[in-house]
């Protein structure tokens, strides 16, 4: 149940090996820095992809191929960009059913204690969004929002 995707394992292992909170924090920054502008082109940074209620702006996309969900995301703040990259990478390539099995425990195993609670809450919200994408079979953030009304 822990083994989700190879990417997830990589991140979890890497963070587990670091035993200093400051360095874990810096690891996330590094992940964020590695996300290039072209990985999530300007054309995608539009309101329909914008998540609501974050301190910095966060865009998320879901691409469905062969019934599997591939997430990608971006933010104007590096730390958030790093988190989005880790979350999107970790939970991409899963089917709707697999997504529904994810729990907050899976996020917690990523070992993000270096983050403020508010950020951790943000990660949980992101996980919920992934699951909703799963149930909706893709679409945009804006569509998810209007569905839930």
């Amino acid at each position, binding site marked *: 149940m822990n083994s989700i995707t190879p990417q997830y394992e990589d991140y979890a292992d890497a963070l587990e090996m670091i035993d200093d*909170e*400051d360095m874990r*924090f*810096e690891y996330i*920054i590094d992940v964020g820095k590695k996300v290039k502008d072209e990985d999530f082109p300007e054309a995608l940074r539009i309101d329909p992809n914008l998540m609501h209620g974050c*301190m*910095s702006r966060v865009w998320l996309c879901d691409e469905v191929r062969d019934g599997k969900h591939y997430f990608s995301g971006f933010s*104007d*703040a*590096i*730390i*958030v960009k790093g988190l989005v990259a880790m979350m999107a990478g970790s939970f991409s390539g899963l089917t709707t059913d697999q997504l529904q099995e994810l729990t907050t425990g899976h996020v917690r195993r990523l070992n993000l204690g*270096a983050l*403020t609670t508010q950020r951790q809450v943000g990660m949980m919200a992101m996980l919920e969004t992934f699951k909703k994408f799963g149930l909706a079979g893709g679409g945009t953030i804006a569509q998810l929002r209007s569905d839930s009304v």
Partner: protein
Amino acid sequence: MNKIVPIDIQSGSNSMDAYDIERVREDFPILKQQIYGKSLVFLDSGASAQKPQVVIDAVHECYETYYSNVHRGAHFLSQKCTDVYEQVRGQIATFMNAQSENNVIFTSSVTESINLVAQTWGRKFLKKGDQIIVSEVEHHANIVPWQLLQDQIGFDIKVAKIDDQGEFLLDTFKALLSPKTKLVAITDCSNVLGTMLPVKEITRLAHEVGAKVLVDGTQGIVHNGVDVQDLDCDFYGFTGHKIYGPTGIGILYGKMDVLKSMPPYQGGGDMIDKVSFSGTTFQEPPYRFEAGTPPIAQVIGLGAAIKYVSDLGMENISAHEQGLLAYANELLSAIEGVQIIGQAKDKAAIISFLIEGTHPFDVAAVLDRQGVATRVGHHCAEPLMDRLGIVGTVRASFGLYNNKDDVDRLVAAIGRAKELLI
């Protein structure tokens, strides 16, 4: 009271020598906390200040030894608690140089103070077609209450402008004034930029056209004190938790004739003269505006805070903070890529800044991990952010307990942020 002792920027600060900052720091237990294993550098006093031991103990002592509900009590504790509580009203009147303690109304926060004025004075005296003036630097607390009232009544809200340095533009303000202006609601100090506004001159000009003036003194009184009679404003509000007092307590000062002209705000116990289903009559100010059990222990704690800053001396606090501001300004200006937002001539000890090529949230997060607590975001002043064309700032706001070491730690943390983020 507003006079700031001049300091010598070159040599750091003369005043800091006179003011024994290390002894002052001993009064604040929280400053001994470690954050991520580093000693705390608290530069978020603009959001809320830490409390000296005397304030914490005053609250404590109240609950442990003489607590009781106040007013109308025939028993010993009730009398004692009422005495201590009511004596604070006089103390605050003295601190603000109000005409009398009856000009001092206890509220739960300055937000409530301003809403109170909007919903009593404003609802009674403002009409469709009237104008009120606020400024571009206002905190939401001095914008939204007027917008809510505007929805009910339909007057116009005009906005006084600042220039790109954050300096208040007195001439354009003058141009907004007209006989239609019924109220000017303005802060004496921007919580984002530190800009001190010329509220005395603003008041004089507003009075010339017959407008009333409400000053949001939340930041100003903390850094420079106030003399409400000299200022001559009709209302002055501030909040306890920023002046080293407890949360849950605010102050509204009002001129007596204005207060007397106002209907009650909230209804309940204590504010009434006589209640019956056929008609209810109300008390005189200030009690008319204090419905229900007041924030008793918080008033008493605020009394201790006001005594604390008075004992230190507002001039000494101002001088100390100005020394820090000058020092920080000098060091931060020298860091490549750091842009200080707000460069008015007359500033309180608040520095907003951005680092080129970074997002302010990232900067604040890195600072936090160095043990340096700052605030980041729009600071409840979104219209000001829009005016400046930015999403937010990192804000370092100083209190009477900060020292040069704190500034040095800030500078080092900014260095680390640049290393990590750029």
